[in-house]
């Protein structure tokens, strides 16, 4: 019984995610939530949230800092990109490079003010929130710039082509799914064997098998659904998200750089006296946030194939919510890439489900607010119990 409780506690958000998904499958007309197209939209609509949430996670790990400017920065970067591509006919790759440079410049500015002038991040990024949206609107004269070149949009909004050309079921997609499953299992088995060889504690074999079965089942469900979405297969958005997530997961869990982020979240002063340049790390967190914002900006622009003044609105809130719901501590020091992804997915599922049942847009915001609040309260209670025991 205690074991069950422990498992429930550790995986609460994942279980909630599954329950919410089932709930919407039941209440949507014809179980639309479980349709192949819903899986596709879930990825398309939330790709930018995943990317921004990972950047926000890095900021939040350091004492719960946030970046409020990312939504406006998305619009600003996109406005520049759209002007370059559409109005000035600059080649796509040059435009993308300029967008990256602009993003890095913004990040360097914010990071410098936060880390080296020592201004609270929320004030600095609030300034960015106001200034970049205003500036970008001025640049575009408040007009929507449409007709973004296809050479750019297909990098994100396209699909991995099917080498077998089956019109109803994308075989490539299934194969990639199977390969991912095998890769996952092989990595798990190798790392477990290594631990056993060196005599370290390992999780029970049964737990490993159950975990592997669940993970492969989820991967294959996605592979099957995406493959049968009129044969479209894997959207490039998903590839981008997976690559970014894997890289950042590696950085945070395996490298000294990642370790420093967690250490700073626990005690900045102790980390500084351990010979670590804490200001540089804080600077890097904000630089990195804006770098990821550029990727999110590409995703947002390709999805709408235009840059309009509403682009990127509330993106920062989506990213922060995803982190909080995904168990990232609002006080810093704990949280994982995987957690942020679960959080983003949960919010994505709720969003999609609510629009499928045609819930009024304003009520959708109320629901999202409640979800956020419940998640934070839940985290606090969970931690309190842990410290008491």
């Amino acid at each position, binding site marked *: 019984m205690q074991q069950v409780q422990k498992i429930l506690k550790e995986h609460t958000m994942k279980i909630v995610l599954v329950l919410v998904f089932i709930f919407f499958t039941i209440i949507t007309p014809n179980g639309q939530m479980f349709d192949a197209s819903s899986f596709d939209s879930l990825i398309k609509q939330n790709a930018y949230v995943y990317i921004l949430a990972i950047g926000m996670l890095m900021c939040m790990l350091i004492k719960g800092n946030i970046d409020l400017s990312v939504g406006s920065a998305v619009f600003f970067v996109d406005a520049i990109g759209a002007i370059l591509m559409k109005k000035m006919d600059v080649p796509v790759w040059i435009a993308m490079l300029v967008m990256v440079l602009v993003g890095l410049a913004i990040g360097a500015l914010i990071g410098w003010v936060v880390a080296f002038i020592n201004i609270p991040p929320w004030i600095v990024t609030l300034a960015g929130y106001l200034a970049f949206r205003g500036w970008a609107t001025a640049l575009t004269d408040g007009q929507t710039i449409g007709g973004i070149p296809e050479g750019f949009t297909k990098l994100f909004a396209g699909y991995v082509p099917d080498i077998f050309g089956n019109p109803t079921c994308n075989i490539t997609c299934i194969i990639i799914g199977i390969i991912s499953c095998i890769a996952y299992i092989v990595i798990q088995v190798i790392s477990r064997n290594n631990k056993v060889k060196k005599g370290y504690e390992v999780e029970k074999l049964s737990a490993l098998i159950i975990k592997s079965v669940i993970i492969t089942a989820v991967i294959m469900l996605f592979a099957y659904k995406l493959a049968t979405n009129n044969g479209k297969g894997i959207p490039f958005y998903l590839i981008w998200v997976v690559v970014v997530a894997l890289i950042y997961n590696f950085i945070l869990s395996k490298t*000294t750089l990642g370790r420093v982020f967690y*250490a700073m979240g626990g*005690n900045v002063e102790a980390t500084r*006296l351990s*010979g*670590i*340049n804490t200001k540089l790390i804080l600077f890097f967190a904000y630089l990195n946030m804006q770098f990821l914002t550029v990727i999110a900006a590409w995703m947002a622009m390709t999805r709408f194939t235009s840059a309009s003044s509403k682009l990127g609105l509330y993106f920062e809130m989506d990213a922060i919510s995803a982190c909080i719901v995904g168990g990232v501590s609002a006080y810093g020091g704990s949280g994982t890439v995987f957690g942020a992804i679960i959080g983003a997915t949960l919010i994505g599922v709720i969003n999609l489900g609510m629009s499928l049942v045609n819930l009024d847009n304003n009520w959708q915001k109320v629901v999202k607010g409640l979800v956020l609040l419940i998640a934070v309260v839940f985290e606090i209670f969970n931690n309190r119990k842990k410290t*008491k025991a």
Partner: protein
Amino acid sequence: MAKVLLEMKNITKTFPGVKALDNVNLVVEEGEIHALVGENGAGKSTLMNVLSGIYPYGSYEGDIIYDGEVCKFNKIKDSEEKGIVIIHQELALIPYMSIGENMYLGNERGKSYSIDWNETYGEADKYLKMVGLSDSSRTLVKEIGTGKQQMVEIAKALAKHAKLLILDEPTSSLNEEDSRTLLDLLLKFKKEGLTSIIISHKLNEVSYVADKITVVRDGSTIETLDKKTTEISEDRIIKGMVGREITDRFPKRPNVKIGDVNLEVTDWVVHHPQYPERKVVDGVSMTVRKGEVVGIYGLMGAGRTELAMSIFGRSYGTGIEGTLKLDGKEVVLTKPKQAIEHKIAYVTEDRKGNGLILTNPIRVNTTLANLDAVSNKSVIDFNKEYQVAVEYKEKLRTKTPSVEQNVGNLSGGNQQKVLLAKWMFADPDILILDEPTRGIDVGAKYEIYCIINDLVAQGKSVIMISSELPETIGMSDRIYVMNEGKFVGELKQEDATQESIMACIMRQERGE
């Protein structure tokens, strides 16, 4: 026989998995100073928390009989109404409020909708005078030192009409002089009829001030020593605390050869970071040799920590002047990282504040100052890291079920060991230990001293900053005495006595 003011009968308090108090009995008579001593985690603070209502009635077993009646406190306010006031170890004053505001916080003078500031400050000044403070109660708390803050805490307790005052480690952050003032104050109030319970690690203070001493060990009261009937010596108390006799409080150092000078500081000046015109360290020169333990004795605020941190990669202060030579070569260290690379380690006095990451496991804390040693092209080798943590855990005999345990769950002594492990793993030649035994119990202190001996036996140098005279004298080969930012004396071990050290300070205070 005097009237019994408080009797705690068969108090048992359990936390999930641990019995913190087991049938504890405590009798306190009116008008006495009763000391509670015991090792860390023995249950002293828990007992006082039961008494003051922090753990409400019903969450423990047993009875509290105070002033002749059984008490059922549900919150601190209940016990305060009866005149039981507790002063916690960590100062609980709000720095940006005035002394007067702090004293009447939650207990404001005047009507419920408007505070009578004249009465507040008038009353506050009255109580401040009683504790011997001449500061105005309108002064902000952040502008007075820790010694005075502790006095404000006592004034605050008096303002609540305390009959029974409980002080939890009141002198742990005070220097010798302020401690003495505080203890004398307690003796003065005793004459006026105030009863106090004092929890302390400092046995010399306990034997100075207490009428009775109750020893707590492993959640039980072992014995109560009465000054009237038994001779109380520090050794006698220690025997009760640890359950065996400790014959020597400072371990003998095997003959360590003292080698060449490996650290030399000349005319070192450090200015305060916020008030750059103020010199915190003023023209200090010192040398440290290989294999030597150099003690820096000084009172709190003498500039010891500031001196150490400014040497450690300028991690404190501005406008640092003077030269630093390592092995005869002049170096300029501007970052902690450079100091570590030049094999200097600074082990902080404030292990919770800037030494350890309490929410992280021992493993992570152990390697933080030398992550490169357990990583390969900045990818951490977790196996190696784990082995390192286990190795140091065993070497320093840190008591913990596993190195994956969060440091915050360890006792003070074990935390100090983790902190030492962290810096030993950084492989320094010179270790600056700032108050290495603050707030840890007798047994753990002894172990820390043994570690210091091992370090110098390996040819490393140790600079030990301390405000405990016996420790400084017992451990150092050579002692620098520091006061008001200056070195006011240098003594060899054979010349060092409590009197000769204090004389150095007095000479300077008199301006000779």
